[in-house]
């Protein structure tokens, strides 16, 4: 297998009761690649992300990080997950930025970004704080470390949550509609820091509704609808000259809304 593949998902199937949410999804993400996942609501984007980050279990298929298997279809045809210790290790490979931040409200900004490195990774407090402060500075939050999440704007909270994920030094970072809970005037500051990360070749998977952003930042755009990947490729192709009718319809509806 290609050593540079960070995440590999193979033939992922997932249903909630009667509803097939993921219907055989395969994709891989290489080191330094930025993948944007677009598509209509209910198309399975968020579920795919939740399955990749092990928050949701898949019914069948395989998930591998850096060649290590988190889940694979067993002999009975349903997915079998790795033992808890191995999953714990695999979790350290990725970070996730939530749509509604999910910062810890009782921790200050600095504690939010240093607690997991200290408690989970057993970093020294000093080391974690140095690293945390450097990252906060990079995100333009150096004067906010003593604040509590409720004292920050949505855009600031989302940047803190990006720092919290980065502080764990993940190999790959997932974003679940990172600007959807923000007022329009605040999306820019969050998109800017994600773009900055892309420039530094951070491996990222971004579920987004921001087409212009996807076009600017992604190496690969994946269009999902009805639990399958309808089309994927470079942004110029998927967003500029889509081959599939469904992609064209989606993009047409989208540009109507934006206009």
């Amino acid at each position, binding site marked *: 297998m290609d050593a540079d593949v960070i995440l590999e998902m193979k033939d992922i199937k997932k249903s909630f009761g009667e509803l097939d949410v993921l219907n055989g999804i395969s994709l891989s993400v290489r080191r330094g690649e930025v993948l944007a996942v677009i598509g209509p609501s209910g198309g399975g984007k968020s579920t795919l992300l939740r399955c990749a*980050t*092990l*928050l949701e279990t898949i019914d069948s298929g395989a998930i591998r990080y850096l060649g290590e298997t988190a889940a694979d279809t067993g002999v009975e045809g349903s997915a079998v997950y790795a033992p808890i210790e191995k999953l*714990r290790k695999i*979790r*350290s490979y*990725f*970070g*996730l930025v*939530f749509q*509604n931040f*999910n*910062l*810890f*409200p*009782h*921790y200050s900004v600095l504690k939010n970004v240093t*607690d*997991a490195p200290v*408690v*989970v*990774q057993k970093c020294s407090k000093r080391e974690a704080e140095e690293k945390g402060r450097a990252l906060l500075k990079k995100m333009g939050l150096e004067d906010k470390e003593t604040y*509590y*999440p*409720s004292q920050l704007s949505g855009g600031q909270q989302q940047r803190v949550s990006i720092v*919290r994920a980065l502080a*764990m030094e993940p190999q790959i970072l997932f974003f679940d509609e990172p600007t959807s809970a923000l007022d329009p005037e605040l999306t820019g500051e969050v998109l800017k820091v994600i773009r900055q990360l892309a420039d530094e070749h951070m491996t990222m998977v971004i579920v987004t509704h921001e087409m212009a952003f996807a076009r600017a930042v992604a190496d690969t755009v994946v269009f999902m609808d009805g639990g399958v990947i309808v089309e994927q490729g470079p942004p110029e192709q998927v967003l500029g000259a889509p081959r599939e009718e469904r992609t064209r319809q989606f993009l047409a509806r989208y540009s109507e809304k934006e206009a």
Partner: protein
Amino acid sequence: MSFLTILEQLTPGMWRSMLIFFLTLLFSLPLGLAVAFGRMSKCTPWRWLIKAYISIMRGTPLMLQLMVVYYGPFYIFGVSISSGYKFYAVIIAFVVNYAAYFAEIYRGGIESIAVGQYEAAEVLGYTKNQTFFRIILPQVIKRILPSITNEIITLIKDTSLSFVITYMEMFTTARQIAASQSSVLPFVGAAVFYYVFNLIVAVLMEKAEKRAAYFE
């Protein structure tokens, strides 16, 4: 008998009332958390058992529970009881009763925490224990403080129910002095004690709530 003498005679009872109060909190607050976990357990028989326990504790008078705990061993099992058991009976009855109330308060608090907090902690690699004690519980405590204050204030007054098994706390003492002296003054003394004790507790809890208000 002067009011001062009466107060002096009430003092040992006052200490006993305060002892009941503190010991009940000391044991029932952690026990309540354990009961809350049982109440939310995935194991159905266990959950129903805990549900029944809470239902009985909340559905019958504490006074009756005190009598059952104290007289039960003799009348039900024929075990002879020593006078020293009286104190233990009071503590057992109060702890078991208040744990049930606290359990429901904890449960309400725990269930009010957004699932996103658990998910964020899980992705960051916290263990289940770390997630609960570092992330969830501090938020729960802040949310349930007003309800806990309510229970604590009720507890101070409930300690007087110990009179039913003549444990010599404040109220039982006051009753005996009142009967022997044909005076209501002991009750006035008792009322002042309960009121002042409650006032102090209310002020302290308000301070605690203010301290917990540093986050939203």
